[in-house]
């Protein structure tokens, strides 16, 4: 027990609590026996019924307790600021997560689309090459004497002589005056 107490002594928290208890308890009593002090006090007020003591004790305690003073403005402001910053922090965290998630998703999406682009570019190249090679093959086939095709020559050209330039008389375009019948049409809504 003694060692334990000694070990408790050096810690500052204990020292502070000691000072506190000293202030409340009678000085003559050793600080290590607060219970005995309490009993001695109760003993000094002997022969009193415990019922009578009750109202007196709280009255003293209430008087000594710090009354609930109105919260000062600066504190209220601070509390509000704290609440506000909490909401802002929360919103920012959510936004950060959304942005971060979006970034990662965008990168994945980009990567996917890039792969698609490469595939499409490849197809384009292949189709271009194939179509040109095919064109060459078809022409070569057509050029072979057995293809039944002949080269285009002036004899195959249909020559049309241009007609003499006609003088076009400006014809009168009949102007149709459209009668406004919209007023007679009943509205469809009825």
């Amino acid at each position, binding site marked *: 027990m003694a060692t334990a107490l000694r070990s408790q002594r050096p810690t500052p928290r204990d020292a502070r609590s000691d000072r506190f208890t000293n202030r409340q308890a009678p000085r003559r009593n050793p600080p290590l026996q607060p219970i005995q002090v309490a009993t001695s006090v109760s003993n000094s007020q002997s022969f009193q019924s415990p019922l009578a003591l009750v109202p007196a004790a709280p009255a003293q305690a209430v008087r000594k307790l710090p009354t609930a003073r109105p919260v000062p403005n600066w504190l209220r402001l601070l509390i509000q600021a704290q609440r506000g910053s909490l909401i802002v922090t929360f919103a920012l965290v959510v936004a950060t997560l959304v942005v971060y998630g979006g970034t990662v998703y965008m990168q994945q999406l980009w990567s996917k689309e890039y792969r698609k682009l490469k595939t499409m570019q490849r197809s384009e*190249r*292949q189709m*271009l090459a194939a179509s040109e*090679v095919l064109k060459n093959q078809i022409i070569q086939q057509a050029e072979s004497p057995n293809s039944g095709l002949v080269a285009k020559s002036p004899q195959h050209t249909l*020559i049309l002589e241009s007609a003499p330039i006609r003088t076009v008389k400006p014809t009168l375009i009949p102007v149709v005056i459209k009668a406004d019948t919209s007023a007679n049409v009943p509205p469809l809504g009825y």
Partner: protein
Amino acid sequence: MASPSSSRTSRPRNRSHSKPSRLFAWANSLKFRAVLVWGLLIAAMGALVINLFYVQIVQGSLLRGIAQSHQVTQIRPFMPRRNIVDRDGNILALDRPVFTLFAHPKLFKLSKEEVAEKLSPIMERPIATLVKQFNEGETGVRIEYSLIEDISNRIIDLRLDGLELIPHQQRLYPHKEVAADIVGFVDGEHVGQAGLELSQQNILTRPSQEIRLRQMGDGALMPDQIPSGFLTQDDLQLRLTLDTRLQRAVQPILKQQVTKVGAKKGTVIVMDAYTGELLTLASYPSYDPNQYYKAKPERYKTWAITDLYEPGSTFKPINVAIALENKTVKPDTLIDNPSAISIDEWPITGGSGGSETVTDIVINSYNVGMVHIVDTLKPEVYYAWLRRLGMGGVVGVDLPSESPGQFKSRKQFVENRIDRAVTAFGQGFSLTPMKLVQLHATIANGGKLVTPHVIQGLFDSKGRLYWRPSLPAQRQVFSPSTTKAILPMMEGVVTQGTGKAAQLPGYHVAGKTGTSQKANGFGGYSESAYVTSFVSIFPADKPRYVVLAVIDEPAGGGYGGTIAAPVVKEVLQVLTALENIPPSVPGEVSAESENSAD
């Protein structure tokens, strides 16, 4: 009661009990515990620091390298050489990625036969051949040089160990030899070696640089470090003035004639006289640029711009134009035209033996008459005119290795009459076929010296011009009245003179034949080697095109009017059909078609 033995044992226990209890008490003390925990934490922290040092400093570079290899990938985007297209958008040259397949039989997880069995259907090659190839070495056996993407992907899908695909680019010329003379080819290193591939190397190559990108665990690329413009690959392509349809049609005509007359080579040039755009530049023999290594290297050159020849009589209209421009003669001026003359003791033959008009001299291609026509010009003036026309210089065509013509020095030309006399009928100097086309274009277009060219420019896929080569400005050398006077003379050549073989029913064709002796390399002329040529301006009534056919050294001899003129006629036929040129006399075309139907 306890036994003595037990009491003996109990005593030490009591003693020992007192010691441990003190020990435990010390161990139980908060101070000890705190120190213990602190110690543990410090020790753990120390261990972490040591590990941090080890990881960061000792092994730092190694680990960084491993991490980089996982996270960073270097990609070299496929940057094809730009396509070359003709005036209608037909692709004459394009790039495609191909793969070289290497086998490393040492790394095969399966037997060689099994690998061969899997590869065989994809590569369309017998299993035995593949196994034989695998047996050629332990590693690095080249199985195939150029596999297209589809096949390479199928090989990748087999997921076989010991096979390696190395990507590279291959130039494909889908129309093979059709435009080989103009387009040229690239070698194995993708560097242009002939034609436009050589002369327009800078325009055709797109810069390709490696890009370092971070990648995710699954190999997906992270786009955050992509340089700007990574995806915006330009779609520019080099558009030519060439008409592949015409070129294709001309080649068989040329080939047929060259083989028929047993000539060494032949060329046909079709040019738009007003713009200098070359519609056709065909040579025979040619080569397939896809397999350029199979052809003789001398075929790689476009001989219409690299080889010089003496133009012969095809140059006569130019001389007449100079004389007309200087007003020393008129088309109907009578010129003395004896059958033979001697100048500086050199005999010149080829006259009618009387007097002829300038027009008749051109129509019938009289050499003596021509000598007398140029005699009307002062030697200095004549020389200055020929230089003004660019004799002895280059045309400036946008194809590589153009040869400048050869022309005499001013001193020699002015002092020796014989030098001027032979120039009168196109001998004693040399030029390229392209130069001759340029000179005749001046007659067709009203006297402007245009620059023949094959490049229209770089166009994007929407047909917007991005770059155009700067051509020298057109230079007016003859007055339109002069060229207008020359055209009937040249038309007369075809209707009644030496070029009757080029007559095209329904159309007015102007032309001039040329048969010139070839220099024998010893300062004289060969007795048997001739260059036959025919140059035509078409249609003569509304000149638009200049067509030149040159047939080099026909085996059995011959003249421009008999060997080259028929080629031009056939070319003109195709040209009228493809370009929809209406006939000047419609009745004649239908008459001939009726005749041919009969």
